[in-house]
């Protein structure tokens, strides 16, 4: 799994990525030195839990993907089945081309099947 993340991080503008369970447990990560694993994992778990809860409350069930664009960075959370793939990117990255890489990485993680911790 680390290999998948490493390849994803080679894409220009990607600062780091990790695979995290819905309760915030890190399965694999590959982050640049600007990012702290614990901080990203805690933030991701919080986003996933809160978003799922509010969607469910309004009858919209789960989400497959959450893209967050802020004034100084971008993040994408993709549901890969047992866990979520979280990608942290630079502000200037163009989402279109990176999306293809994220989808492909998400698919490969999903195909790895059951995750045992």
């Amino acid at each position, binding site marked *: 799994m680390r290999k998948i993340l490493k390849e994803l991080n080679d894409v220009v503008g990607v*600062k780091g990525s990790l695979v995290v369970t819905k309760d915030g447990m890190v399965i694999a990560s590959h982050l640049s030195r*600007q990012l702290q694993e614990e*901080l*990203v994992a*805690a*933030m991701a778990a*919080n*986003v996933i839990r*809160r*978003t799922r809860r*509010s*969607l469910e*409350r*309004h*009858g*919209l*069930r*789960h*989400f*497959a*993907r*959450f*893209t*967050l*664009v*802020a*004034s*100084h*960075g*971008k*993040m994408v959370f993709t549901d890969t089945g047992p866990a979520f793939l979280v990608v*942290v990117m*630079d*502000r*200037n990255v*163009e*989402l279109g081309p990176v999306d293809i890489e994220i989808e492909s990485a998400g698919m490969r993680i999903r195909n790895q099947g059951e995750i045992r911790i």
Partner: protein
Amino acid sequence: MNLFERLKRSRQLARLRRQVKRAPSPASYGTLAERYIAQGELETALVVAEAGLELFPNSERLAHVRIFAKKKNLSGQIRKLKQDLLRRPSPLAFTQLAQIYRELGNVDDALEIASECAERFPLNENPYLIQGEIRLERFLRDQIAKDAMLADTALRKVVRLNGHNLKAHLLLAETNYLVGSMGECRKHLRAVLQIMPTAQEVQEFLRAFDLANAMPSEEVEFEELAKFIEEAGAFANPPEAFPSLHPHTRRAREAPRAELDVESLKEQIVQLGEQIGVRNSLVLDREGEILADFSRPDSLSRRQFAELVNDVRDTADDASRRMDTGALVRAEIEGPTGNVTVVRVRNLTIAILYSDPLRTERVWEMLQDFIARNLTTSREAAHA
């Protein structure tokens, strides 16, 4: 290129320029700038992209065009500076590299280079000045307390290292002015005048300011004031009144923001909602109250959708703050039972709930057009 070809191109350019004047939008500016790039006119492309970014600072397309045009010019310099840093690291090379990254809009790299410089050369004031400038710029844009505190800390380090750094005093005065720490603001403005007694704008501002604040008010901790600004979503004093160094506030002084026409907003949001695939659309104010909305009968009620949008906005805001990535610009949720796009502009939140056949990219375009139509003035358009 033959004459016919040249004529055709110049007509196309004229048509795109007219389009920009008639209906300024990220798409019209982007198309014009890209056409200039295709013709090898990088300088003109840069001018067009920057004019567009003044009106639509969150446009990704325009940001990319600007970076592309600038990178072409600056890549040689970046390479040389990186080599210099490997051979013989110096504060000057670090500072120049950080400034170039900043110019390219790559703020993370600029901050990283500045902090590396500060680690290696702790007695040099320049990396702290860059950090302070970037953080203040971010505070002006996003009103996040952490940025104000980091700007204040970095700029204080500069004046501690060099009490005669005029720029640092002015930036410190501005930071304190924005959060409402008037005593500190006055102190730093006086320091500016001691260093440069002829600074006319500062003299005038200080004169008006001294009259207005004849009675010294009780000073509250800077951190507390900054947090209050973040919660309130508004500065303690109008940024455009300060004799700032930032082009952002200078521009704001020249071109005031558009007045919000709620009635037209209501009409437009209904039009947006009538697009095929849209189930709900709404605009919320800073407090999360509905300003305008549209709901299809078979979809969520207006209250339910407003609740959902407020939740998504708060979650996204919280995540951006934890990651130090500034304020929320856009959040997109895609799921099997519907997609939600939430956009933040000024203090307003605009959101759409939609499903097939609408795609996320199309919704983002629709929202950008909506913002261009409703949240920019004709004066801003003319200025463009």
